């Protein structure tokens, strides 16, 4: 039993580099079922967090709460969705830590970011399974997620946090950000804006700017041409073409 387990783990560690070797002209597996399942768990919880968060963020968007069962339901479920989101992102981070790590070639890629955005003539370096832009976006989202979780816990249980510590006699507040909850609100809002900015880019890239990307995340497969165009180094590795 034990050696078998060990072997499986080895395979897993290179899972992100691995896709089934496909014959020329066929389709390539880009995301396996597990990766897609985790992605859509993250996506679903994010969507709920986005809608419920926006309802609580702005009076102009409070009407969204009626789609989610009213303001009280929105307030109750938002933090639970946050926990689901954070756990799913954590699993995603562990699974993809290797393909998402920023290597020297990624820093090189970043010098061509503008060229990438404008579909410029200047040759953007070939990218691995994820390009440096995707990686940066991921880490911004993941770090925002961590900040949102930490500040969110303070907002979830505001009475459990005080600068003075638990159990002290409540003193009249001094003006300013004297309650940890206020620091929590500020942090939560700043990182929510960062996170919403990131998701705008991600949704645009995934749904509009890169045809085939959505299908990759739904069906798990991409065409060879797609792989060659967007992730040439990954494509070569998968196909066993030496670099």
């Amino acid at each position, binding site marked *: 039993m034990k050696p078998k387990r060990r072997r499986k783990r080895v395979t897993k560690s290179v899972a992100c580099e691995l896709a089934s070797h496909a014959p020329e002209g066929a389709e390539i597996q880009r995301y396996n079922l597990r990766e897609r399942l985790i992605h859509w768990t993250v996506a679903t919880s994010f969507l709920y967090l986005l809608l419920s968060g926006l309802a*609580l*963020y*702005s*009076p*102009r968007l*409070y009407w969204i709460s009626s789609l989610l069962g*009213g*303001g*009280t339901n*929105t*307030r*109750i479920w938002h933090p639970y969705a946050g926990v689901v989101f954070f756990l799913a992102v954590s699993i995603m981070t562990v699974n993809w830590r290797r393909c998402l790590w920023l290597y020297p070639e990624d820093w090189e890629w970043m010098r061509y970011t503008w060229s990438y*955005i*404008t*579909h410029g003539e200047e040759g953007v370096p070939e990218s691995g399974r994820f390009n440096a832009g995707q990686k940066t976006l991921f880490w911004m989202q993941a770090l925002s997620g961590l900040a949102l979780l930490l500040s969110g816990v303070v*907002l979830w249980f*505001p*009475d459990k946090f005080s600068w003075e510590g638990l159990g002290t*006699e*409540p003193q*009249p*507040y*001094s*003006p*300013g*950000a*004297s*309650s940890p*909850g*206020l*620091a929590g*609100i*500020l942090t939560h*809002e*700043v990182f929510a*804006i960062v996170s*919403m*900015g990131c998701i*705008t*880019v991600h949704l*645009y890239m995934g749904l*509009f*700017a*890169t*045809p*085939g990307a959505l299908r990759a995340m739904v069906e798990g497969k991409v*065409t060879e*041409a*797609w792989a*060659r*165009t*967007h992730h040439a180094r990954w494509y070569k590795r998968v196909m066993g073409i030496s670099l």
Partner: protein
Amino acid sequence: MPLELKALSATNYPTRGIRETPRVCKLIDVSTCIGCKACEVACQEWNDTPVAETYPYTGSYQTMPDLAHNFWNLIKFREAERDGNLHWTMAKYQCMHCEDPGCLRACPAPGAIVQYTNGIVDFVQENCIGCQFCIMGCPFNVPKLSPRSQKVYKCTLCSDRVAVGLEPACIKACPTGCLQFGTKRQMLERALKRVKQLRAQGFSQASVYNPPGVSGTHAIYVLPFGNRPEDYGLPRDPSVPWVVSLWKGPMKTVGSALLLGGVLAAGLHYLKFGPQRVERKD
């Protein structure tokens, strides 16, 4: 003197009613408080908020360590040393009914906190979603969450009594005239007169507590030692927390602009550069 809306929490459209009502005010003359707690009892009676919890004796005459969701009116008993003498002060504490209420500004639920034109700030529990942002927004640490209903409660300044021309229950119960109720102007006049008397009696620091940081309050104090409001359990210079002002003001504008700008930029990019099509094999 009906209740007319002045401001609603989390509401962008105008809410102000058509009638002009006088602005009301409660005056608490600390120098004549004898600590009898009649106001506490009257508050409990009128608002029907029995206190179930008991607290171990802490060496103070104070009924409760702090205000509670079912205890909106507390006389703070405090000992303070001034000029080498021990002073025992009693000061009634409750919602201050700020002219610029931090709770109302922080609240995300439309209509959960209302401000009437007469100055009363009231919580409407049926609209409350229990997020507790009001607790963080209050510079006086007044609103309290009920663990049972998960809604927030505080002194209503007996808005139900005031609406039909009665004075708040605590005022009615006060035996010494320490608590008075009337229009804000009347109460300020009386407070200033009382301060003058106290100064003549040797309380050179006597002053009116009507904190400007929240644009004044609809519960004001006469403090014999006005230079030391902390001795009475009152914050020195309360104001709406800057975080609340920032969060509900510029941050909302900047944040929305950034997000809308991002969406617009994406649309523009699509029109100008279009999608990245896959390269055909040569």
